[in-house]
């Protein structure tokens, strides 16, 4: 029999996280600070709205682009929050999580030979999605000295005449870094000067702890036409399992994305869409409350790592801190394996998010204070052992 598998797919590296998961899952009594999803339950009013929609028999396909009512709510929400105006009929597409939006956005734009600039460290699916779309992923290493913000200098190292798209992942997973308006301005100028298009992945937009609320790159002058804004319900509303995201962008692009979405997916889950309408209408206070609680933990975890002597810049977004472990002369993976075997604490090696994550670990604070304290206590013991070994 022939080998029916596409070699291009075989060539895609499995996620570094997966490997680590396999080890951790085999061990008992592991305390994990390794997850990329909220610990809060979805607010009850959202769940209740979903149950009600099922009782009402709302169990059929929706329009390909998603329920009109949901798109209208999203348009209002996006305007209220980020001062962005999108036409709910032609410029918003409801997707199966932000991940699908990234995938089909790339597929709608990337041609063979196109280069896609991907700041790293960043979320694991950008590179494989670019590859599968037939493009060439070009990692743009971010610098710890810049608190892992993207700078024009970083981009200048990697820009070529073939560069077409910039993926812009802020607030960032895994570093927790954010981009303020002042940080965004030179990036916007660069994008315009080089005639690039931006996929701005703002899935953590609501989890931003700086004094100023999150600013979307698309809201800068003349940028909306150059941006596909990706967001979703997973992080802000604690709805990961509902698989619901959305993309907002120029009508010409959204139209083509809707075509791919229509043939590949048909429509996002109906129950989730009804739940999401409720989320947008009624859950602002719940989201704010979760944000306050994340912020408490964030401060606590940053302080704890600094007290342990691990350099850790202050991350103002998402729910991760990204301390440096370079001083121990181990790779990120060695450090994480040793921590797992010695103290049964699971954190994720920075290299799972790109080579420039070497020397760092991603620590999630989507855990209760009690769990964080126990885990941080164990990490401290581990570090003391390393230090005493000299």
């Amino acid at each position, binding site marked *: 029999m022939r080998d029916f598998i596409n070699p291009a797919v075989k060539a895609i590296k499995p*996620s570094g*996280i997966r490997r*680590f*998961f396999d080890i*951790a*899952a085999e061990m008992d009594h*592991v305390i*994990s600070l*390794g*997850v*990329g*999803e909220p*610990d809060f339950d979805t607010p009850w009013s959202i769940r209740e709205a979903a149950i009600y929609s099922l009782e009402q028999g709302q169990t059929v396909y929706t329009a390909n682009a998603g329920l009109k009512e949901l798109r209208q709510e999203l348009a209002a929400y996006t305007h209220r929050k980020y001062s962005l105006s999108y036409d709910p009929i032609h410029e918003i597409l409801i997707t199966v999580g932000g991940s699908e939006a990234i995938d089909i956005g790339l597929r709608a734009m990337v041609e063979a030979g196109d280069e896609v600039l991907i700041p790293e460290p960043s*979320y*694991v*699916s950008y590179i494989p999605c670019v590859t599968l779309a037939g493009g060439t992923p070009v990692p743009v290493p971010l610098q710890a000295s810049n608190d892992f913000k993207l700078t024009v200098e970083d981009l200048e190292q990697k820009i070529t005449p073939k560069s077409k798209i910039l993926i812009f992942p802020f607030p960032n*997973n895994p570093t927790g870094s954010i981009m303020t308006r002042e940080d965004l301005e030179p990036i916007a100028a660069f994008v315009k000067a080089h005639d690039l298009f931006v996929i701005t992945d703002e899935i953590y937009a609501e989890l931003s702890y700086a004094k100023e609320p999150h600013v979307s790159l698309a809201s800068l002058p003349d940028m909306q036409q150059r941006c596909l804004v990706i967001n979703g319900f997973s992080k802000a509303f604690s709805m990961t399992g509902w698989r619901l995201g959305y993309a907002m962008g120029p009508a010409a692009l959204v139209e083509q994305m809707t075509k791919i979405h229509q043939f590949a997916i048909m429509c996002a889950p109906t129950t989730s869409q009804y739940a999401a309408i409720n989320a947008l209408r009624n859950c602002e206070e719940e989201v704010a*409350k979760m944000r*306050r609680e994340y912020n*408490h*933990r964030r*401060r*606590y975890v940053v*302080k704890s790592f600094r007290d342990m002597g691990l350099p850790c810049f202050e991350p103002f977004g998402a729910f991760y801190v990204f301390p440096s472990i370079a001083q121990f002369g181990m790779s990120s993976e060695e450090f994480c394996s040793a921590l797992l075997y010695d103290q049964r604490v*699971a954190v*994720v090696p920075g290299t*799972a998010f790109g080579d420039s994550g070497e020397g760092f670990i991603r620590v999630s604070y989507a855990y209760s*204070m009690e769990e964080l304290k126990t885990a941080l206590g164990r990490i401290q013991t581990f570090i003391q052992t390393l230090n005493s070994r000299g």
Partner: protein
Amino acid sequence: MRKELLEVLEKDSRISVQDLAIMLGETPEAVQSEMQKMQEEQIIAGYHTMINWDKTEDERVTALIEVKVVPQRDGGFDKIAKRIYEFEEVSSVYLMSGAFDLTVIVEGRSMKEVALFVRQRLAVLDPVTSTATHFVLKKYKDNGILMEPEKRDERMIVSP
């Protein structure tokens, strides 16, 4: 900081001032003095422990009593409320809108003991015109806390 401090303390009053300071991005001195102030202003009315007595050897019953009263010429409902809340057995008293006036929550060792309290202490008070006693059969959630949380963390140990 007040609202956030209260929000944290409401959930966990045992948390140390040092930890509170870190979580709120304040100094321990500022947190300490804010807590002190709120105690003086009686915003923080007390710190107590939620106990699920059903899980202990102790027998306890809780009754919720609807009480109708005649308000007093001077002092309105407050005076009669005081005569009721001063009893050791009474854990809560609320003035209500609607069909009755006061909700009185009483704890006792047995239904008999509570019934005796209602008959001999509460119903006999002059301004009290009627009482309706409802015994609590099971507490599912009390003061925002689930009595029998069934939650486990079902998230994968590591995820992107």
